[in-house]
């Protein structure tokens, strides 16, 4: 199935879901099939608990940027402390 037809099928499925929901005054949530018909496959808590997204590989550039930003945060925190101590002691 190509991407366009897949999207169309999803839209049709969404419309079916909306129509099914409109047909009932209140959903029968004791029926697991009704619950599953309203949630996406990876939205069910048990499915999320069973799996984690895997690690992505990080390029050298990305790792360098991460470390640079981490150093930036630490240096700036020190400056904040200096600034606030000055302000509190009236040293402007």
């Amino acid at each position, binding site marked *: 199935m190509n991407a366009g037809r897949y999207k169309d099928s999803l839209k049709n499925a969404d419309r079916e879901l909306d129509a099914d929901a409109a047909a009932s005054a209140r959903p029968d949530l004791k029926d697991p*099939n009704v619950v599953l*018909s*309203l949630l996406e*496959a990876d939205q069910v808590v048990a*499915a999320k608990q069973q799996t984690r*997204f895997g690690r992505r590989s990080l390029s050298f550039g990305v790792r360098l940027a991460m470390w640079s930003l981490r150093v930036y945060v630490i240096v700036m925190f020190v400056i904040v*402390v200096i600034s*606030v101590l000055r302000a509190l002691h009236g040293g402007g």
Partner: protein
Amino acid sequence: MAAPEKTSTSAYQAAQPTTELASRSAAGRQLIGLLTHEDLDRARDRWRVARARWTGRSWKSLGGLRVLWLLMGPGVLVFLGENDAPSMLSYSADGARYGIGFFVPFVILTFVMGFIVQEMTVRLGAVTHRGHAELIFDRFGKFWGMFSTFDLMLGNFLTLVAEFIGIRAGLSFFGIRPGIAVGGALVLVLAVITTGRYWTWERITMGLAIFNGLFIPAALLAHPDWPAVGHALATWTPLPLGDRPQTALLILSTVGATVTPWMLFFQQSAVVDKGMQPRDISAGRLDTLLGTVLAAVFGIAAILATVPLFHHGINAADFEYAQFAQALVPWIGHIGAALFALGMFEAGIVAAIAISTSSAYAFGEVFGTAHSLNRPLREAWPFYVILVGSACAAALLVLVPHAPLEFIALTVNVIAVLAMPPALFFLLLLVNDRELMGEHANTFWQNFAGVAVTILLVCAGLGFGIATVYPRILGG
């Protein structure tokens, strides 16, 4: 985007996001015996949205409004939550120290930055159904995950303390003693979470958040000079001059009043807890836009309300929360000042609810415990312990004599904005991750805007650093 493979049991091993309904997947049907209370509540919310979409399709825009009403929440809450006590204090200081000028359009710019950033969290949450902390741990590993969680937890705790300072100060205007003010606020935080239902929690908190609008009548009572407001919006002048380090601190604090790490974590987790799906992204954007506009208007109202202090030469340099309300009595009357003080109280209480929830979500996501407001206490007690515990610890610290509250109040927004660039970098990496996001990954212009916000924040931080360490360079 390539069409995803038909979902099967093995698809769960790869944890690829899918827009396929669980009832149509073989793997989903195997989970029937494992459905939780959280799934049932979320399914009920999804049913209401689906029904509103179907029944509203014939009324055009009115039907759309009903769907928007059901799907709004995380965006409005995150922005009105971020109009918190320290933020309103920053806006008040802007108005009292510099009058109508640079800060009026600058606040709008910061909210534009806020919208750009928060919109990305809506897409991330709706597509992956995972919280921000969980995605960082999964995709970048424990090392970076712990760093960002540490930043979040430290920032959240300091901000929570500042919220309770605001609550205490706001109610002190009415002669309410600190213990009663802080204790009452804690009871309110507890009462909101006892509902055991995300939807109810969200609606109650939104009901409280709308009182952020109390700053509007307070501003109107200050009789703003509207032509001056128009001039400031058009020209960004007069510029804030004077003590450069202090001005740099105020600018940074104003940025920190709108763009902070807890907002990223909170909105994404709230989008997941609300059960939003990719087809809800447009409504999520509108929700975020509405929150942005409301918060910007209320923030500017706080600036305008305190402008009389600037015109009458009142030195507000060392003012704390309630002192603004007391100082405003001669110019906006007791009612106006009372509205201002109530606004401070409201800002503190809504933020306390949102930020403690943000900490609890992050804890659950990192340690893999249940983390949903749709879970009853017996199923998700660690989540509720963190939520209530962080609020209680912050509240108690506010009541401890000689605690460094002034230090915390001064630094909280600044620390938030300094911790933002790494958080934004992770956000940009995640939202560009096509394995996660597929067709919902950032476009060129979304990346351009996101990178621009990150660079602006880094520059603002560096400017603050230079102004602090070498004040003479900037003529301070």
